[in-house]
């Protein structure tokens, strides 16, 4: 087999499905980071599978342009296990939620974690049932008032990381959907671990449980309420890194670094063979007045289930020869059931046309969120259209020019991006100063004899002038775009926004207030 460089981008992982989560749902940020991290892994798309159960989060596979199964409630780990055992070459991700994974699917989750099959399990924890419109879930804190617990829930909350430690999971991590960089890093680590990876993601359901994770995600307070784990480093937290965790007997306690020396603090080891340290960490909960650990609790190398199973299969074949499945099926009493009622199967008009049933919007709740403009409105509106930022005219050239000409144009005008168009003036690709650095300098001797086409980026993510500032900031903050190209309805380049322009716009509006 020859080595092929994949060169996948996030766009390769974006499906054409309309996303049906509520606007502002934390699930979107998780999707964006997954689409950002997967291209980095160097795995062909066709070798990646997402399997989910039932719930809001479980719609995830539709939005990934990979193979995927939206499966049965709580049963995603079972399908994933079967798939991984039959085709160990696949990278299999399980997407589940606190309801799906910890209630109806709790048993499957536990045994999958125990077996250490090489699966990547992402648990979206929003402490509520969102899809069924707001009943308390296994992770809701006691006292949570919902439709199904009008006087407050009584059940103690399920602690997902503690359970994972208890069953000996080999990779356990926690992150928050608002902490986009950290979340991306956790996905990377999960992807690279061999064995079951379990990542709990704090995700906000703004319709039914808004603010459940505020203490851990609000940029103003979170540094006092969470602690970032770093391997082989002492447990230190606080915005100014002035507090730490010390072990007092068998209880972790918060101490101030003004009074206590760093050498007295607990030190984190991801690869501690037994689970005692991770268990300590899992017991540090906000409701007990402790900062909650974020990061990798545990990462140890243990034998991977499918490898051992496949070895046993090989051995069995060696000893007894290849079996015959047909023969196995028919070796005992078998009989054929005649189909007497043919023609009656299937089409009774109940959803038989293959369309996905559509749940209506519950206006009552949508209203709650979208009429409430008060609390977190920024000074300028993220719904400002991009045209209000006065985008600069883009530098445009034909895609048929040479590399030398393209570089000359960027150089003369001292800009970072050249939009390349076809004969009809439609966008064909872009060529940037980043491309000059990454691909051209030192690699191409005759710039004038080389077409720029060979070096431009095609399949460009462009926005339109009436798209919102929020979209631009999204691309710049999550996907680190330094320029955003604007096109008209006919895909002709009409403007370009640099991160400088966007930063200035934000800053000017800070200053005015």
């Amino acid at each position, binding site marked *: 087999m020859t080595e092929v460089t994949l060169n996948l981008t*996030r766009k390769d992982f974006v499906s054409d*499905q*309309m*996303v*049906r*989560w509520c606007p*502002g*749902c934390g*699930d*979107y*940020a998780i*999707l*964006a980071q997954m*689409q950002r991290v997967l291209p980095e892994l160097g795995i062909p798309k066709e070798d990646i599978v997402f399997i989910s159960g039932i719930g*809001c989060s479980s719609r995830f596979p539709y939005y990934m342009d990979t193979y995927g199964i939206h499966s049965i409630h709580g049963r995603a780990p079972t399908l994933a296990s079967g798939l991984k055992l039959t085709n160990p070459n696949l990278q299999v991700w399980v997407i589940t939620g606190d309801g799906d994974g910890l209630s109806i699917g709790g048993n499957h989750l536990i045994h999958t974690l125990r077996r250490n099959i090489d699966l990547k399990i992402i648990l979206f924890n929003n402490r509520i049932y*969102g*899809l069924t*419109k707001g009943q308390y879930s296994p992770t809701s804190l006691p006292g949570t008032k919902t439709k199904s617990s009008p006087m407050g829930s009584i059940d103690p909350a399920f602690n997902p990381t503690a359970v994972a430690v208890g069953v000996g999971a080999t990779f356990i991590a926690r992150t928050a*959907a*608002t902490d*986009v960089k950290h979340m991306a890093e956790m996905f990377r680590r999960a992807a690279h671990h061999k064995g079951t990876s379990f990542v709990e993601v704090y995700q*906000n359901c703004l*319709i039914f449980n808004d603010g459940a994770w505020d203490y851990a995600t609000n*940029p103003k307070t979170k540094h006092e309420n969470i602690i970032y784990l770093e391997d082989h480093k002492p447990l230190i937290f606080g*915005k100014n890194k002035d507090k730490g965790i010390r072990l007092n007997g068998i209880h972790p306690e918060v101490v101030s670094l003004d009074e206590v020396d760093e050498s007295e603090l607990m030190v984190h080891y991801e690869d501690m063979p037994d689970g005692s340290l991770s268990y300590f960490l899992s017991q540090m909960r906000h409701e007990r007045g402790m900062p909650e650990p974020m990061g990798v609790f545990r990462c140890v190398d243990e034998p991977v289930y499918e490898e051992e199973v496949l070895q046993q299969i090989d051995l069995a074949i060696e000893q007894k020869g290849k079996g015959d499945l047909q023969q196995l099926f028919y070796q005992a009493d078998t009989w054929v059931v005649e189909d007497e009622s043919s023609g009656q199967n299937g089409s009774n008009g109940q959803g038989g046309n293959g369309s996905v049933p*559509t*749940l209506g*919007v519950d206006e009552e709740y949508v209203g709650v*969120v979208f009429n409430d403009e008060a609390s*977190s409105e*920024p*000074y300028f509106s*993220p719904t400002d259209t991009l045209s209000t930022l006065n985008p600069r005219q883009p530098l445009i050239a034909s895609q048929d020019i040479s590399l030398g000409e393209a*570089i*000359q144009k*960027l*150089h003369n005008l*001292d800009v*970072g991006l050249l939009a390349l168009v076809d004969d009809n003036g439609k966008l064909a690709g872009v060529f940037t*100063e*980043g491309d*000059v*650095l*990454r691909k051209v*300098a*030192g690699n191409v001797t005759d*710039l004038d004899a080389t077409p720029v086409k060979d070096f431009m980026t095609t399949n460009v993510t462009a926005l*339109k002038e009436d798209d919102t500032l*929020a979209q631009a*900031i*999204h691309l710049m*903050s*999550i996907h680190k775009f330094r320029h955003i190209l604007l096109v008209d309805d006919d895909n002709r380049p009409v403007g370009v926004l640099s*991160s400088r322009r*966007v*930063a200035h716009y*934000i*800053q000017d509006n800070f*200053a005015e*207030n």
Partner: protein
Amino acid sequence: MGQKYDLQHERVKHLDLTQYSQVESGTTVGETVNKMRAEHRNCALVTQKGKLVGIFTDRDVLHKVVSSPDAWNKPVDEVMTPNPFTVTEDDKAETALLEMNKRHFRNVPVLDSNGHVVGNLTHYALIKFYADQFPEALYNLPPNPNQISDSRVGG
């Protein structure tokens, strides 16, 4: 409420700084570019015994390197911007960002109190700071604009 208030209370070290490559003075342009490529960085900071002496970015590659093949084997010192404008990690974030805007810089090296480089301040820092304040409006968006359905699964 009050984002201005919040930014005023942040120091540069509280912002999300951008990663950079670091090379020692005297490194050739070619080696510098290759290092930036390998590390996926757009900016290299040039140091001499730990002290910052210059900055070299993809814009410099565009202007001074790509079209002059003999630049490749020269020391990076000849094409870098020497003695760049810097800020310290304990400077007020807002002042640092305003200064950066005023001077039209895209990369501002950040130093600690001993004068060692600890980061690179870019426009990304402000955009990220802002986005962190409004995750629902800015992070929680579909992959493409308008790729969102009116019929919702949950709420």
